[in-house]
């Protein structure tokens, strides 16, 4: 399945982004763009710069050169706090190791994003529970991470990432720590929620079969997007 980029609908535009650590170039003039609601897979071997690119996109890290325009704002020109505020409401993240806060139970983990955005306590409770129901772990709302299985933890992490209805979801190997069955369930869930809520997705993965839920795939090697994909993106 392929979709064409519509200049009116571009949600994320990455232009010639470069990044180096200790004289080693991790990203080398990476450029691509994606539409609202588009799902893009990012594949590449270890050390190719996937996570660095993801960190730059989420504003956790800054690019040395190039521009990243997300939802009409140029991230590269924003202060760390301004980038943080963007992450609060418009970006969601899912990780391979779930990264639920161990001292918060499931519903509290989900409600955290709402709390950061100053929702009232009753709204937090209601929306967090609704979201847990959507990902089918409402029955584990009071459980702490150490009491949950990997699949449950990842579903709670998805709920947390989507509870604010972000425009873009960044998923770093979301099925990497799960068995095949749970991995499949999580992927289907991400696809369904992305479709329903019109949330864009950048899915970092090693597994070819995981890319099935994405509209297109970008390959990254030694910090460079492969020429074929890069050309397509520019088009």
């Amino acid at each position: 399945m392929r979709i064409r980029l519509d200049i009116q609908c571009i949600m994320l535009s990455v232009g010639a982004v470069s990044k180096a650590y200790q004289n080693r170039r991790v990203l080398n003039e990476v450029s691509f763009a994606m539409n609202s609601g588009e799902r893009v897979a990012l594949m590449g071997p270890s050390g190719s710069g996937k996570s660095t690119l993801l960190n730059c996109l989420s504003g956790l890290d800054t690019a040395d050169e190039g521009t990243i325009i997300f939802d009409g704002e140029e991230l590269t020109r924003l202060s760390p706090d301004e980038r943080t505020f963007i992450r609060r409401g418009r970006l969601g993240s899912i990780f391979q190791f779930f990264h639920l806060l161990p001292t918060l139970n499931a519903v509290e983990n989900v409600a955290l994003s709402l709390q950061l955005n100053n929702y009232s306590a009753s709204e937090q409770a209601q929306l967090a529970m609704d979201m847990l129901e959507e990902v089918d772990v409402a029955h584990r709302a009071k459980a702490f991470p150490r009491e949950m299985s990997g699949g449950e933890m990842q579903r709670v992490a998805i709920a947390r990432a989507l509870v604010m209805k972000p425009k873009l979801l960044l998923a770093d190997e979301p099925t990497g720590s799960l068995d095949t069955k749970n991995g499949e369930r999580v992927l289907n869930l991400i696809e369904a929620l992305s479709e329903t809520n019109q949330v864009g997705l950048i899915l970092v993965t090693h597994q070819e079969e995981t890319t099935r839920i994405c509209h297109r795939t970008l390959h990254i090697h030694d910090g460079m997007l492969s020429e074929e994909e890069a050309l397509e993106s520019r088009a």
Partner: protein
Amino acid sequence: MERPASPQALLEVWLKTSLRYWLRHKLQSAILIAIVALGVASFLSIRMANRAAVKGFSGFTETVTGQVDFTLEAQGGRFPVSWLSGIRKSLQQNPVELAPVLEVLALVETSVSKQERSSDLLQVPGESLRILGVDIIGIQNFNNQNISASLLFSEEGEEEPDIFSIARDPKALFISPRLAENLWLSVGDEVEVIVDDQRFILTVRGILPTSRSGVEVPENLAIMDLPAAMALAGKPDVVSRVEVIVEAEERSEAFLETIRSSLSEHAAGRWRVLQTEQQEEKGAAMTSAFRLNLTILSLISLLVGLYLICQSIDAAVIQRRKEIGILRALGLIPKEIKKLWLLDLTALGFLGGFFGIFIGWASSQIVIVAIARTVSALYTETTAESAQLNSIDCLIGMGLGVFGSLLAGTMPLSVATRTSPAKIIASGRQELNGVRYRYQWLGGLLLLLGCLSSFAKPVIFSNGQAFPVFGYITALCWLLGGALTVAGLISPLGKVLHRGVSKHLAAGLGIGKLRLPGNRHRLAVSGLFVAIGMAASMSILIGSFETTITHWLKTRFQADIYVASRAFSGASSQHFIRSTTIAQLAEEPGIDAVSTQRYLPIQFQEKQVYLVGIRTELIEDYEKFLWIDPLLSLSDMPDGAESWAIINETYCYRFGYRTGDVVTLESSKGSHPIWIRGMKADYGNDQGAILVDQKYLESWYEVYDFSNATLYLSAGVDVDLIVEDLKERFPELAIREQGALLKNALQVFKETFVVTYALKVLGLFVAVLGLALALLNILREDVSSLHTLRTLGVTRAERAGITAFEGTGMTLIATLGGILLSFALGWLLVFVINRQSFGWTLQYAVPWAEILSLGILLVALGALVSWLVGWLAGNEKPVQEE
């Protein structure tokens, strides 16, 4: 087949991993070594200072004649010279030498160097000198190889001066090389000294050898010829003791026993025959309880050090957990990983111990001043000014460093090696939070055991001093039990606190973490709990002391003017006021009455107590006491009692005698039954005191001088004018008006607690540092949570706030628990430990303002430190980032 790695292989791995790690992280290595060094230093400094303070009075006797077999001491410390001929006769022709020694304490006022004579006098305030009056010519003629013929002159080949001419010089003084160096003195220079209330100018006629019989000559030791020393002390016919030396060839056990029996038989109660060891042990035994207290304090400081080492090593293990995981993945078994770390810990302990020895030695030079002052005030005059380092200290320092590091590293290391390597490599962290806590029952049991132990009686030493061993066991049980209990309360209290703050982002997240505390939370809260519990209980003890003593001092010090020798330092002081001076004071216009006190250390039931001579006719009208038992009517005095006395509380506690009982004192004049007519509170000494009229000291012990005097002025006389006048007329006396003395007494009281204050500050500092380290470790351990928070859009300031609330919650729980504990510990210190150690009744007083401010300060400090940790560590990146 697999087999364990060889020691060489492990050593190579260690050199390539651990050693390189420490060399690359120089600052971290230096901090860790410094922490171990501080732990070792705090223990060693108190140990060295303690030993030096005691040696100040017990060690110098060894240097008088080199080797002494027996020492003869009379009751009351006055040995008449007239007894010597009788002793000589009783010993017949046995090869035994007698060396009478008179100890004179002097205060160096000024020294006048030959070169400086034309210029101003060199001011040397406060140098005290122990002058030993010995028969110089007699000793030089001793037919005994054990006594160095060169008692006074050490330099080989040095021309021996004319001993006879020196002996005839009543001003001739021989001083130690160190004193000569410190005061820039050489032979021929003059020194101005104060003895009792008289001023003298002496001439340095020689410098003593640097050491005798392998013992360094103390700086404050000086020697004079016996008649000159007698003139100086105003005691023409008494000495302090007689040293008995048996010739080397005859020194068999049987012969020594014959001599000892002969001396004892001839004594007929007039003197005691002490063997050398007894003489040396006398001073040490007198202060055994005090020194044991100090040892306990130094052990507490060591525990504090161990706590810090444990936290620091935990931090190091966390930082290198990934390396541990990789080594395990490469095939090293947990036992081998432990061996690698044991090498680390040993090296760390060795280096920390090495530096700790030097830091300990340096800080002991400061601590000794405070300890020596306490020993002088409470026990016996000591002039120790510096602490010496010996090989045993070095061994202990090294041992403590290594043992402490190994002990402290056990917990974090065992946790690290137990975790699966895959988990460590994958996430770099362990699931430590929410581990079920199982020790509340042990905490409760220890608290209960402590309660039972508090009822037990103290252990009594051979010298009669009581040591409240069960009191200390109670304290330990309560500290440990309380720490275990409070650790178990973090979770429920965290839940309660969380309910109140859950709506606030930082507070909710920070306090929320306490609902599922890990072992690091528990260790840090326990450390803080113990520190604040001990600090606040010390405040209660000191507050109780202060309240009681201020009341006592205000009752006791109601005279207008107080007079003592300028060198007077307490009941044990050997600086007196002569009777002629008292007579002169009584003649002064405007003085209504003169009351005097004379402290005389005597042996009572083989233990030292103070017999205090007072003017009994002045009691009630002039002399005020704080009575425990008011005076009984004289008509109740039983027949057969020679006189009546007042005892202090400590005496009652040590010997079990109460008001109305009759006790018998021994002197060279015979037995003296005395009736106890009343009991007073007395916080001036912990040996016990019996107060009798001064006339009995004169008739029983031939003591005619005074320790101090109090002057009561006639109505309408200007105190300041009289004080100024007396100061001018009696420059050798310390003359203070009531207010100044009260201030001075309270100052001395506060200085007595200087070591306690220092330990209190050290304990709190370490506890807060422990909190910071624990939080840092918690953050580093769970760095992925930090990363998650960043990803979710939590700012750096908010992340620091979360850590601040976490730390504040921990400090709050520890502080509330610690203050509760301090009330119990304060009760224990006041009513059990103090009572059993000193026999003093204190009023339990809680210094609320101090404790409240201490609590607020600690919570504020905890919040600040936690915020700083959160701010600094809040930007750490997760380990799995590419």
